């Protein structure tokens, strides 16, 4: 049906823009299936379908948390270092 085709085309174009490459037929089918199985607003369903199909958001979220955790640990080391009494000459 023409209207479904329009949505499918938008799904593919938007997903390819987010992923940064062309999608395979299998990926596209999984994306469409995931999108249609969700309940809620169109934007919400699309973002969930992207997450479920590609896991991109989760991946960069983990990298972000890891980078922030690492810096936090280094700052704790810095605090411990400066808290040490000064060396005697």
């Amino acid at each position, binding site marked *: 049906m023409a209207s479904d085709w*329009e949505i499918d085309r938008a799904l593919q174009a938007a997903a390819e823009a987010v992923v940064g490459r062309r999608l395979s037929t299998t990926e596209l089918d999984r994306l469409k299936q995931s999108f249609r199985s969700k309940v809620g607003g169109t934007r919400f369903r699309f*973002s969930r379908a992207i997450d479920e199909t590609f896991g991109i958001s989760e991946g960069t979220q983990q990298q972000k948390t890891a*980078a922030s955790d*690492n810096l*936090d640990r280094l700052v704790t080391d810095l605090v411990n270092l400066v808290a040490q009494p000064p060396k005697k000459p």
Partner: protein
Amino acid sequence: MNIIQSIADGESSAGDTSPLDYYLSHWLSAVLLAVGFALGWFVTALRTRAEISKMRAESITEEGKTLKEIQHHRRLYIEATRECAVCVNRLMDVLRSDAASDADVRTARDAFCSAVGDSAIPRFHELVEWEYLDKKSSSEELKIFVESHVAPELARFDRWIQAVNRDEFVVRRNLAPYKLSIGTVQPFLSVLSGLAPNDRATFEPGISQSIASLRGARVGE
């Protein structure tokens, strides 16, 4: 005279036209009118469906752009945080070095402060703005985002700034306390506007405290 009787009697009520023809022509008009209405309704329904599909397609395109921006700003924030980590390592190397002067410590500390205040925090704010755009339609999702990302990260920024404002730097080495401008930290409060009132009341004190602290309060003050 009733209509059925007049049809049965073959009486004419309109010139030469028989009553049967007369009533059939009216029935035909009514049927054609009904078909016309049905067709009109069907065409309108199809058009409405096409409009809804078009709006959904546009929503998907918009969400695609937002997700792309979120990914982009998340990567920028990751890079900024890694840059901060390099600066902290350099500062610790300087502090461990016996040959390091106060000027060396100042330079290394300034580099870390600049990486946090001019790069990491603004990058995080840009990310928060895009995430807010994505989540503002669902106050529950926005609440989870504020609870699990915004509030903890602001508390971390506060710890990082407090670390370089310790007495060991400010008093012992006579370095000025590092303070963030109101423009750098105040915009984080705007994310609370999309929350339900009771959720806003829950998160506002903690976030406001982090912001006040980032603007210059020192450990123990």
